[in-house]
């Protein structure tokens, strides 16, 4: 190997090393430790007012419907009107969840499925039985990721902090397609969806009050505020619940020729 070949090889090796190390560098630039890094878990923090660890189920009594005087943007109204027309004709408009797209937020928290929560000092891990969807609420003081590098997702990015006896969770960075605020009514979610949840523990730790405020200026005007109550269910575990092709082959409601898929 002559000097010139050696030089080219060394430059190549350095470039390769830079590419391989890129994710590490990004994490270092962000200056954050992973939520379950021992060093992060061990940092001194005030004792949280409550621990969400447990299995929770809301009973569906509080209907998740738009508030009075709800006004959709013209872009969103196209979907809403199409869904109303389809329903009146006994059809289904864009049944994305039935077709195995993730439910995402807010549906993960509004449809009647149990959610297991595991609270650590740095994060709350929420696992819904509905398609085993994972939602992480970071409590380690990190800010929201810069929107220019954040990867949009169905559950978004949730950052929580404590205000007195209340856990306040702020969620942004959502995907803007195949994602619904209310799928049955045809109310879509956009990338401007912003959700703020105020969570309080009631009845000695057996009941949760979750006040949810949705804003999505690309979809509707103003705020959509509603409250759900969750009960601790000590006799429940989360089962594997996946949306699978052979499941849908046997679901007449998914297979119906009348479904409007686009």
């Amino acid at each position: 190997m002559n000097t010139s070949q050696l030089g080219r090889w060394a430059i190549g090796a350095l470039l390769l090393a830079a590419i391989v190390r890129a994710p590490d560098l990004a994490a270092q630039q962000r200056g954050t430790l992973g939520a379950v890094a021992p060093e992060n878990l061990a940092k001194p923090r005030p004792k949280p007012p409550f621990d969400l660890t447990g299995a929770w189920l809301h009973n569906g009594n509080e209907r998740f419907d738009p508030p009075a005087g709800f006004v959709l943007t013209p872009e969103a109204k196209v979907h809403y009107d199409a869904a109303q027309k389809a329903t009146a004709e006994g059809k289904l408009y864009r049944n994305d969840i039935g077709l195995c797209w993730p439910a995402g937020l807010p549906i993960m928290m509004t449809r009647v499925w149990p959610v297991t929560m595991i609270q650590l000092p740095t994060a709350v891990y929420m696992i819904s039985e509905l398609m085993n969807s994972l939602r992480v609420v970071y409590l380690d003081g990190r800010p929201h990721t810069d929107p220019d590098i954040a990867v949009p997702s169905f559950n978004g990015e949730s950052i929580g902090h404590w205000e007195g006896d209340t856990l306040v969770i702020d969620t942004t960075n959502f995907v803007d397609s195949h994602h619904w605020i209310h799928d049955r009514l045809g109310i879509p979610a956009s990338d401007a969806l912003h959700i703020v949840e105020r969570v309080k523990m009631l009845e000695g730790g057996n009941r949760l009050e979750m006040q949810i405020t949705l804003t999505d200026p690309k979809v509707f005007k103003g705020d959509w505020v509603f409250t759900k109550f969750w009960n601790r269910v000590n006799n429940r575990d989360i089962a594997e619940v996946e949306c699978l092709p052979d499941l849908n082959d046997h679901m007449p409601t998914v297979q119906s020729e009348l479904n409007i898929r686009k």
Partner: protein
Amino acid sequence: MTTTKILGALVLALCIGASAYAHHSAVGVDRSKTVTVEGVVKTFKWGNPHSWIEMEVTKDGKTELWNFEMLPPSYLIPAGWTRSTIKIGEKIKVTANGMLDGTPGGIFVSVTLPDGKTLTQRAGRGQ
């Protein structure tokens, strides 16, 4: 309680029941009436988020495959089911809310087994 209140409570209970554990919307199903068909079991899937029965129904010498969407085992077990309640090759009678577009199948309501025993998919409910 007045009759209206009782009716209101019943309607509410049915609405909640219908929404519980739905993994997708069930528009397109004729909830106003039921159909009952007799056939031979091809598949009985005991699973999440839905169990299902696939059944061969023969009518006028023609065999069609019917699919019935069911609730998951967490509902079926309290209603008296196990994964061997229905066996492949058995002749059973299924009552369901059918599809508005005539797709063979629908949402399961009840089954009559070869020994005459009838099962629904929710404990403590007629339907």
